[in-house]
């Protein structure tokens, strides 16, 4: 092809005929902005739906929920209930992770015990636990103990199973390499096995967080003689949807924040990964 500028230009079809994809810097809308627009559209739809089509006894528009939320922040009883739920979440999460990692390591690193216990753990994990919630109340009463215990049983098995799977996926070459360089059992554990499992442990933590939120809040709502359960029950029975929605929003915000903390810790500690 000739290097002549004019001739090469003439080979191009006229601009108007080509549908050109806009270059990155020309695109007006970024994905982040699009996301915000979608969220705003959803809130607007909720507002319009609740205001003009909903029954005010059962649904409240977001504007009223926001007002109710500010009001709730001043109600001492509600704040104590939410704080208590948060405390239960954190305790259940910590216990589930520590216990899960310890059991996961003990079972996963030992071929004999893995063979013996793995099927039992999988079976328990598969049981829908909400069916035995009344048993928890009988055993632990209606206080924080039930909620924490229910949060733990909802999460600890996921941590154990994730860890056992992670142990199976440790690179055998690295184990062999450590052995060839003279590592003893303790050194293999500290320098190969545990660092290999860091991403696995964080995966387990994310699952544990989801399980703990489910378990603790389920128990909170089920036991309605005190705490968050009492308030949701009260607000629902007295037809105050704005307050009910505000309380739910508060709990959802707490869940989002806890999940986000988990994700940030993971990003911090697995930087070498990917």
């Amino acid at each position, binding site marked *: 092809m000739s290097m002549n500028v004019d001739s090469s230009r003439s080979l191009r079809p006229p601009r108007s005929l080509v549908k050109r994809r806009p270059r990155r810097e020309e695109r007006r809308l970024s994905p982040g902005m699009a996301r915000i627009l979608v969220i705003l559209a959803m809130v607007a739809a909720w507002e319009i739906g609740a205001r003009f089509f909903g029954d005010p006894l059962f649904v409240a528009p977001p504007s009223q929920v926001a007002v109710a939320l500010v009001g709730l922040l001043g109600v001492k009883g509600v704040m104590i209930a939410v704080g208590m739920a948060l405390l239960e979440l954190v305790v259940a999460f910590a216990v589930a992770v520590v216990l899960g990692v310890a059991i996961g390591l003990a079972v996963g690193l030992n071929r004999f015990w893995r063979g013996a216990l793995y099927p039992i753990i999988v079976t328990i994990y598969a049981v829908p636990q909400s069916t035995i919630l009344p048993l928890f109340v009988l055993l632990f009463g209606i206080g924080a103990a039930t909620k924490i215990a229910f949060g733990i049983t909802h999460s600890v098995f996921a941590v154990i199973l994730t860890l056992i799977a992670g142990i199976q996926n440790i690179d055998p070459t690295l184990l062999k390499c450590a052995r*060839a360089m003279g590592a003893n059992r303790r050194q293999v554990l500290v*320098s190969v096995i545990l660092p290999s499992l860091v991403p696995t442990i964080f995966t387990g933590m994310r699952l544990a967080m989801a399980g703990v939120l489910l378990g603790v809040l389920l128990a909170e709502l089920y036991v309605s003689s005190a705490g968050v359960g009492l308030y949701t029950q009260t607000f629902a029975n007295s037809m105050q949807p704005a307050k009910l929605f505000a309380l739910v929003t508060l709990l959802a915000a707490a869940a989002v924040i806890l999940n986000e903390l988990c994700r940030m810790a993971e990003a911090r500690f697995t930087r070498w990964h990917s």
Partner: protein
Amino acid sequence: MITIECEKVSKSFGPRGSPHRTVALDNASIDIERGELLCFIGPSGCGKSTLLNIIAGLAEPTSGEVLIDGTPVNGPLPRKIAFVFQESALFPWRTVIDNVKLGLAFQQVPKGERDDRASEALQAVGLADFANHYPRQLSGGMKQRVQLARALCLGTDILLMDEPFAALDEQTRMVMGEDLSVLLARTGKTIVFVTHSLVEAVFLADRVAVFTARPGRIKTVLSVDEEHPRKQSFMKSAKLAEMRNELYDLLHDEVRKTMELRGEAGESGARAQSRGLRR
């Protein structure tokens, strides 16, 4: 002086008496001189890597034994033997320098000495500038250099390398081979090197042990009479070409036999061959 003695080493895999039991290695015997570079070459599955692992004490022979300086091998000997693996055996969460130091840490070398020896080894393989990189930031060739540095800094008399350049492209492995020859000529180590590449074997080795198809036996041992470090001119020499051809003839039938056992050879036999024998 002989430093590694393999005496009738056999290795079988699978349960005893089962039809699935395979004999990977059948009465392999070879004596390896102190300071020599010996290459194992043979068709896939002929047990050359298995023998290397047995010498390293990372696998147990089914029968026979390996002696290092007269003592039977009975587990890893980290102070005598360093091992370079085929695939990247670097710890991904450790930086390059920390990877190199790890073996020294396992052997409780004092911290100051660890730093010095690791830096020196990285220098020797030309990666001093990459000390604080993570393995994922390195190319395949660089990763294998780090592995080599890690093995070298352990200061062992023996270096075992299991197809260290297998995952590299031909041009990279050519340069790696030249560098290795220069580096190793200085150290005076005893080296056993497993490879699939005929040219690599002749270019690097003092002797080349040719394995038969499974069950693997040592068919013959060729001597390469050429001074270390090997020069570029040797790579282009008629002598190297001639020895490569000799190896080709020795291996050709064995590779074909291996392929036929697996049902891979046939009409496309020529292609299968060139896959098995990297020329």
